[in-house]
């Protein structure tokens, strides 16, 4: 008979555990003071009670329960009505001090049965360890406890300090699962992480996962690439989605393939955001739900910016066809952002997505080496959800034609790349647009002038105006830049455009 799972109902934790804890199992939660052990255990405990279970919380510390409650009262999961009913707290400190581990075991056996507990939390194993005197005594205690809770079907969580060598290593080999909570300094920022070091009877998502503590309790954010990475690749679609700018759609041989990911690359002010909003606006006209997921401008500014170029988003927003989600680029967590994005996509069955821009994810990811795998997993998930995505990204080169891809390997991760740049001509800044990569399709790779005015965004229908602009600066005419490296002249690959 398969072992029954007990959900912690702590957001993200059951996903990391691939289904939750096992009924009657004994689990150890380790971490330094302040790591979040007590909050996690209490959140699990109250969630368990809310789901119909009964929790016994035994403290082995000298700290009073009143003190514990006062710190928990502000947490949303804390339900005082359950205290003394389905949720019972008792102190094992005095029994432990007077009758040692055998006395504590008797107390636990009686209390678990009297309370009909289905979840037992023992907070402060370090005290039991001090009383035990020897590692063997503590191991014997844990083993007896393990047998007891398995017999009575009471899942048990033991809270203890972080790893500090052999002295408390031994008992960790005996438990069914071991979770470690930790905090790390990354620059000025402190990052919280949880890792499942051991889980008998089940696979888990290995490695560290970030988590946050708010008044709602703990939310774990499994690493996006580990959580989503194993999904099957979706089938390719041949349906085309227009961008809503006629000449650009012609350059794209009709539009972007459904489910594709397009990188909109350009220096600041080249019109990436407006072009992306056009894509969302064009979808709303066809009743295709669109989502703007941006980092740098508040929704009100986005709407007014669009209105300045005669692109009305307001009616689409009012009709529920467009949603603008803003994530201020503060101390965000990339995996939390990915969850929020995917939830928003699923909630409204979004077909068109504009991420403005990739830099928001880059700034929120703690370990930069993750970005490639993170973005690949995210874009695969979006593709499997039938979403066509445009993602903007800034280049550092303000005026030149040189293309510096700011994320290593990103050109291979996206299906299409559209490049926007400024050109200075007689003290005037002009914009040029080119399609430099398009998977699955032929496309027009010529440079086109791209203009933004109060009448809207326009892409010149031919390359002549771009030619005229470029004649003002030293240049080599481009033919098919896609078959060359970005920024490289196809006829003479060693020579850079200038």
């Amino acid at each position: 008979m398969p072992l029954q799972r007990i959900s912690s109902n702590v957001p993200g934790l059951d996903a990391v555990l691939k289904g939750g804890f096992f009924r009657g199992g004994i689990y150890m939660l380790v971490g330094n003071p302040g790591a979040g052990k007590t909050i996690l255990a209490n959140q699990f405990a109250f969630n368990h009670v809310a789901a119909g279970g009964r929790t016994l919380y035994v403290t082995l510390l000298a700290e009073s329960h009143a003190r514990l409650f006062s710190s928990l009262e502000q947490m949303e999961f804390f339900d005082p009505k359950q205290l003394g009913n389905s949720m019972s707290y008792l102190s094992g400190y005095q029994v432990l001090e007077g009758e040692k581990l055998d006395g504590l075991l008797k107390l636990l056996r009686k209390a678990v049965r009297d309370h009909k507990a289905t979840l037992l939390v023992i907070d402060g194993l370090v005290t039991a360890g001090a009383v035990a005197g020897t590692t063997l005594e503590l191991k014997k205690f844990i083993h007896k406890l393990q047998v007891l809770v398995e017999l009575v079907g009471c899942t048990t969580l033991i809270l203890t300090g972080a790893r500090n060598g052999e002295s408390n290593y031994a008992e960790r080999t005996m438990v069914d699962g071991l979770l470690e909570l930790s905090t790390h300094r990354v620059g000025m920022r402190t990052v919280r992480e949880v890792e499942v070091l051991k889980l008998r009877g089940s696979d888990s998502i290995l490695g560290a996962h970030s988590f946050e503590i708010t008044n709602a309790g703990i939310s774990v954010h499994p690493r996006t690439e580990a959580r989503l990475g194993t999904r099957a690749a979706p089938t390719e679609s041949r349906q085309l989605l227009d961008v809503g700018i006629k000449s650009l759609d012609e350059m794209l041989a009709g539009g972007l393939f459904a489910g594709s990911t397009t990188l909109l690359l350009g220096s600041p002010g080249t019109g990436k955001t407006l072009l992306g909003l056009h894509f969302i606006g064009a979808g709303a006209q066809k009743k295709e739900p669109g989502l703007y997921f941006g980092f740098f401008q508040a929704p009100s500014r986005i709407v007014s910016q669009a209105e300045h170029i005669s692109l009305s988003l307001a009616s689409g927003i009012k009709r529920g066809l467009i949603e603008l989600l803003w994530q201020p680029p503060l101390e965000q967590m990339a995996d939390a952002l990915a969850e929020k994005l995917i939830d928003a996509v699923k909630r409204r069955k979004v077909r068109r997505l504009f991420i403005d821009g990739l830099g928001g994810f880059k700034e929120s990811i703690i370990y930069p080496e993750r970005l490639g795998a993170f973005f690949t997993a995210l874009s695969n998930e979006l593709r499997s959800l039938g979403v066509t995505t445009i993602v903007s990204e800034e280049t550092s080169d303000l005026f030149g034609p040189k293309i510096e891809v700011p994320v290593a390997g990103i050109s291979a991760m996206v299906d299409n790349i559209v490049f926007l740049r400024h050109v200075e001509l007689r003290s005037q800044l002009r914009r040029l647009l080119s399609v430099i990569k398009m998977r699955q399709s032929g496309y027009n790779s010529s440079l086109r002038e791209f203009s933004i005015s109060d009448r809207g965004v326009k892409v010149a229908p031919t390359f002549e105006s771009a030619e005229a602009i470029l004649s003002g600066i030293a240049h080599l005419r481009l033919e098919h830049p896609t078959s060359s490296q970005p920024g490289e002249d196809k006829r003479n690959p060693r020579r850079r455009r200038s």
Partner: protein
Amino acid sequence: MKTILIVDDEFGLADALSDLLADEGYRVLSAANGKDGLAWLEKDHSDLALIDVMMPILDGHGMLRIMRSTAAYKSIPVILMSAAPKSAATSNSENAHEISAFLRKPFDLQTLLHTLARVIGPGDQRSHEALSTTT
């Protein structure tokens, strides 16, 4: 008060069951192998033997075989328990058909109590005083 003889070499299980079954109103004896279990049968009365299959010195099959060939113990109900599936755990026992029940470890207390109640009846009024004795 009905007496149950628990025979199991697994550290902790006999202790835990002794306490829990005592709470349920059974008198409990415990031994760590078949040889010690037979010694208990010789010197004290048991209403049921709860015997683990895999043990040192004398295993559960050996103890069961001796019990079934000894007139004094022949009628004592036996519950075998093992971490192995029943088919594997009982395949080498010629007396497997003479057991009252088989429990696959890990089992929960309720399963055990239901089985005991079916075989020898429920325990006496629940007592929190442990009445266990260990050899």
